[in-house]
């Protein structure tokens, strides 16, 4: 079914709060651990203990330096996984129907038994969300932990994607974006949640919350020249300040 559904009943996805993420990579590690034993083939690594280890990951954390024109740079940790786009180009380019978007909840999945490993879906994705498994030669991607979120063998509190469950800072949230009253929808409305590369017209479901504006102390550097002059007009410090300042007049 490589035609996209017109609409989906639910739009399940993630909100990632870039203001909170500390870049610990725990979400990527737990993602790898859960998904290597869950849906589909194992997520393999080649040379895991060798000189140049590589392997398939469904979630990767980049770290960026953002430099405003009038303030020092700040660091933003940036986890990236499949955005489960409404207009997913990876689905329509698939020649076999292995790549599909579910009409019931909007999750984009790969039926690995039908995948011929041509790689065209990965080429069509602007976000780099799909990776070919180096051992199984089929395309791997985030399943939104479809084998957790509906899994009645798990406690209800655990029926969220592994990355969300494990995040120690609560930077990741899971929910239904089709419901305007869901926590994720409210968060996006409150914080001005954004789409990545909207110009690619993929209509991603996952949203990112940009970092809140930073407070700007007057100091703008570590050199003493830029440190604001200390003012002390009371007590011992005030006396010392005045006394030492008066020495300038002597010199």
């Amino acid at each position, binding site marked *: 079914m490589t035609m996209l559904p017109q609409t989906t009943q639910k739009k399940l996805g993630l909100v990632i709060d*870039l203001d909170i993420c500390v870049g610990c990579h725990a979400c990527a590690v737990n993602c790898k651990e859960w998904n290597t034993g869950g849906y589909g083939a194992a997520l393999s690594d080649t040379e895991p203990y060798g000189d140049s280890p590589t392997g398939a990951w469904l979630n990767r954390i980049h770290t960026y330096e953002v430099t405003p024109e009038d303030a020092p740079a700040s660091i933003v940790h940036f986890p990236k996984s499949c955005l489960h786009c409404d207009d997913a180009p990876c689905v329509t380019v698939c020649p076999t129907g292995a790549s599909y978007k579910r009409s019931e909840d909007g999750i984009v999945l790969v039926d690995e038994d039908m995948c011929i490993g041509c790689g065209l879906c990965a080429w069509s994705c602007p976000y780099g969300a799909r990776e070919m498994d180096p051992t199984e030669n089929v395309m791997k991607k985030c399943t939104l932990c479809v084998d957790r979120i509906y899994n009645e063998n798990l406690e209800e509190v655990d029926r969220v994607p592994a990355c969300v469950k494990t995040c120690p800072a609560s930077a990741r949230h899971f929910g239904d974006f089709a419901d305007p009253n869901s926590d994720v929808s409210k968060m996006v409305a409150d914080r001005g949640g954004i789409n990545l590369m909207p110009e690619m017209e993929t209509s991603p479901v996952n949203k990112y919350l940009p970092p809140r504006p930073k407070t700007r102390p007057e100091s703008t550097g570590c050199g003493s020249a830029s440190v604001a002059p200390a003012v002390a007009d009371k007590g011992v410090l005030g006396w010392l300040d005045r006394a030492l300042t008066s020495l300038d007049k002597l010199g």
Partner: protein
Amino acid sequence: MHPAISVIFFTVISGAGFGFMALIGLGWAMPNSAVAAFLISLLAGGLCVIGLLSSLFHLGHPERFWRAFSQWKSSWLSREGVLSVLTLTLFAIYALVWMVTGERIGVLGFIIAVLAVITIYATSMIYASLKTVPSWHNALTSVCYVAFGLASGIVLAATFGSASSFAGISVSVLTGLALIAAWGLKLLWWRRADGVGFSDTGSDAGTATGLGHLGKVKLFEKPHSGENYLTTEMMHQIGRKHAKKLRTISVGLGLLVPFILAALAFVTGAHGFFMFVAFISMIAGLFAERWLFFAEAKHAVSLYY
């Protein structure tokens, strides 16, 4: 993008095969014996089939290739597969009738010619439809694929055909014109590709991360210290290293050598020999051209790295 040898071979060789098939279908005069009909049909069909088989080596699971015929409603890769099989099947019927009766069915030939061109177009659309690779995402990409397919088909037809002229134009002149036209279009393609960057979508590290409104975005640390599928597949660096030299080589072997050989064929009248060497040279030039088509292409995901 990673320049896979199997895909380079597929697009060049199948393109030549379908181009040759189109000219046979359009009634290019051929030696009229059953053996000649068999050998010429075998060559045209064989080139297409070898190219298509080569493309299977690119797949992670070649044994499942038949599944690729199912999604022609949305996928250009699927359409390419369906059109190839349809065109080859009709051509097999055309060739069989030609061998047995000595007759070439004009209407069927015309349909094959149209389908062959559409098949080359479908191949080009696998790449031209990708918004993520701005240098490919343009109508010129399809124009170049079809032009190169037809030009290499004309060189082949001039080699094995018995026509001294086609559509009222001398075969050598037609060959020269086709070569100049195809490479002229490729020069236009190169000019656009060199300047396009990500300007047609306006993508940059700022839109990729959504942080552009805060300031200048620069990668501080990669997700992993080593390479991964994305960096080796979408950010192929080695191929770009010799881009300038390879462009010169591709134009030399693909245009200049065949053009001179076509001129020699015109002067001497020895079409078969000169044009065959011209074809070999042209294919070598097109391999270099196609290598660069992939190696030089920049993918949007590189904005994250």
